[in-house]
């Protein structure tokens, strides 16, 4: 027995000199990088696949329908002045959310609904008296 143990510095040096095991770490590094890059590619692929569902988040279909129902069912209870004031309130409420909304009066019972924010610009012609206000424009055909 030459020595009971190595001094601290010598032991460290011995570990440092032993390099053969590091190929394992190197290999695992390569594998890890591969997994990471594949996962990111895959994620982008997934995002592309759900475009139709994501569109729902940005297109305000329910807000617009709400506005159409108000025009159809509430405007009839109001005179011109009150209607004007109601539209102003709706404008203000939407403005606080960064959206421009307007019912431009074209003639009596005929409005142009405008809905515009950073993502969507939407207008629709509304005939409040006419049942056809409910029809999606351009796709209807006959009454039946």
């Amino acid at each position, binding site marked *: 027995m030459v020595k009971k143990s190595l001094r601290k510095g010598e032991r460290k040096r011995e570990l440092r000199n032993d390099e053969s*095991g590091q190929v*394992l770490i190197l*290999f*695992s590094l390569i*594998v890890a990088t591969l*997994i990471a890059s594949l996962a990111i590619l*895959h994620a982008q692929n*997934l995002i592309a*696949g*759900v475009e*139709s*569902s994501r569109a*729902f988040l940005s297109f305000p*279909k329910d807000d617009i*329908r709400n506005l159409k129902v108000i025009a159809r069912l509430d405007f009839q209870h109001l005179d011109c002045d009150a209607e004007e004031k109601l539209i102003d309130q709706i404008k203000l409420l939407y403005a606080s959310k960064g959206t421009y909304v307007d019912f431009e009066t074209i003639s009596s019972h005929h409005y142009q609904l405008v809905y515009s924010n950073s993502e969507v610009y939407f207008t629709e012609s509304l005939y409040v008296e006419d*049942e*056809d*206000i*409910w*029809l999606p424009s351009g*796709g*209807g*055909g*006959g*009454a*039946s």
Partner: protein
Amino acid sequence: MKVKEKRIDEGRLSLDMLIGLSIFLFAFIFIGQFLPSVFADARSEISVFAEAYKVSVLLTEDPGRWINRANTSEKGFHWESEWYKDNISFRPGLARVGRAGFISLNKLMEFKNATLHYGGSYANDTWIRDVFGLDSPSNSYHVNISLLIPYSTSYNQYYSRNNSGQNVLTIGPPIPNKKVSRYERLVNLPVYSDFIQHYANLPNNVNYRINSTFPLGGALLIVRNTSNIHAQCWVEVRVNLTNTTSLNSTYETVYELGDRVGSTCDITNLTGIYPLTRELNEGYEEVYENFTQTYNELPDNQSVVVRIKNLNCTFALSNVGEIIGDLSSNEARIVSKLVVTVWEG
């Protein structure tokens, strides 16, 4: 001496190498096995989810379309009265024209008829898959479309049933016990007599008993007026459970309205439309527990008892959905859950 030590040294080396390598390989193989299955799961679920969303939107927000192939100027939204004729192409949708979320009764009935006509039974989803574009060369899906009462949760489902006890809408094969994509919508059905289990204008003094099945979709009490404001007036609603063989019976009062002590009727504060769905369904659970614990048997008759003193009321129960609005007004509706479930297979 030196040679011997070297031999020992080499032996140990290979053993340690083996341990180190096997730990590494073990982790590596584990990840290798685990990774594809995780991605495959996510991929199938995400694509299936989009399909379920699409079907639910086409059904609940769109009135559908039809066109006459022989004369393409004949077209429109009311496919329900055209689909069975010659030369007609159509895509179904259940919404009333221009009112997304509100279901047209005729469209609903014809949607069921068309499923029967093309598939032979409600459990056959071939036609549904075809008409909503769920069949593609690379994927095959199955779809189940069902109407549930709002009391249902994702783990506890109760079908909407009409007065004859049949499911209002259940189309497609039964939902399998594996990963599925479930998309839930709330739809507004018209107040159709077959959807209201009981609808009665109750006179001044009555003890009215309605056999019903729990949980209820909806319950509504409308207090209209009184015949004598100088007398007590009240309403009491009970849930009553009976075993018709042993004649054991238990009841509990789940709702009370009005004053049973005084001698006047405060009609202005009592008039109104009161939904009682939650009170009745929760009351039923309590009474059921009491009954089974007291008598050690199961009740086979469930009923709602309405006791009315000096008030004119309307009472309605539905096993289809929650009743919202005075049933006589045209904005009244029955709200149900339309659940579209899609899975790969």
